[in-house]
């Protein structure tokens, strides 16, 4: 019995760590006004102008929505200028917003533009969870919890 005590304590410690990790899933409440990099929410926008945008939501605040949109640099979409004057054009017209970065993805270059849009210009916007999170959450909840609990009970 005396020998078993440290093992029981170790199991209890592991169990408490597991509880802390599990419950931390509830703690990720982020104000949408300051979402930024603290959360991953996808948004599909249908604008009154007829344009459709898909990107990552950064904030909704003061009647404006800010999002990050990725453009593949090919065809009509091209980069012009250099340094601070570098900008993205689509069909000869500048893409509204601030060019944040240009990264290479395989053989393609992907430009990231940060756009702020007045809510009044939005016909419809839909909000989407991260695909990994949407598929992973239910599996983890239904498998990992009971599996860890049962195995700890067997181990003690």
């Amino acid at each position, binding site marked *: 019995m005396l020998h078993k005590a440290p093992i029981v304590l170790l199991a209890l410690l592991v169990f408490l760590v597991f509880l802390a990790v*599990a419950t931390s899933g509830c703690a990720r409440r982020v104000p949408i006004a300051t979402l930024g990099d603290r959360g991953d929410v996808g948004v599909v926008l249908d604008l009154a102008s007829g344009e459709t945008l898909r990107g990552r939501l950064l904030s909704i605040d003061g009647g404006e929505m800010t999002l990050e949109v990725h453009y593949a640099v090919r065809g009509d979409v091209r980069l012009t200028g250099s340094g601070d004057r570098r900008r993205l054009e689509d069909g000869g017209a500048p893409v509204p917003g601030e060019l944040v970065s240009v990264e290479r993805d395989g053989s393609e270059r992907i430009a990231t533009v940060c756009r702020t849009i007045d809510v009044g210009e939005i016909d419809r916007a839909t909000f989407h969870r991260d695909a990994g999170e949407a598929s992973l959450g239910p599996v983890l909840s239904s498998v990992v919890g009971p599996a860890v*609990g049962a*195995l700890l009970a067997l181990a003690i």
Partner: protein
Amino acid sequence: MLHSVAGRLLRRISLASACALIAVAASGCAGTGGWGYAEEPGVPADILTTDGQRIAGSLVELSDEAVAFDTELERGENVEVIRRSGIDYVYVDGIVRGTAVEVRDFDIVVRSRVPLKRIDELHVRTRGYLGWGTAVAGVLAFFLVQVLEEQ
């Protein structure tokens, strides 16, 4: 004695880690590729309205400067679903609460619209892979196995 118990514990912890890893790897594969976001709209969120009402549910869309929000409403004698012009309206104590998205055995998924002007705070819940449900299921499984082992 201590070595054999410690060895058994180590083997079982290794097995638990392997199970968790397999679950994570298998489910991770399902979420990769494409746009990177789920096709079906809906993000867990909660709203605090300017009149102090807190609503927890799923943020679905924004249109006409109002957000559409899905909540789960328990069915009861004071809850009615009435169809008008092909739309199912949900009434609670005779007051319309929203439209019915899904009528289930024990509850109804209700979509209500909240104008942006009426929203005091809007929080989204992201990266919440695990929750209280996982912890509760873990505790239940722990005691269930202990009871079965004693028998």
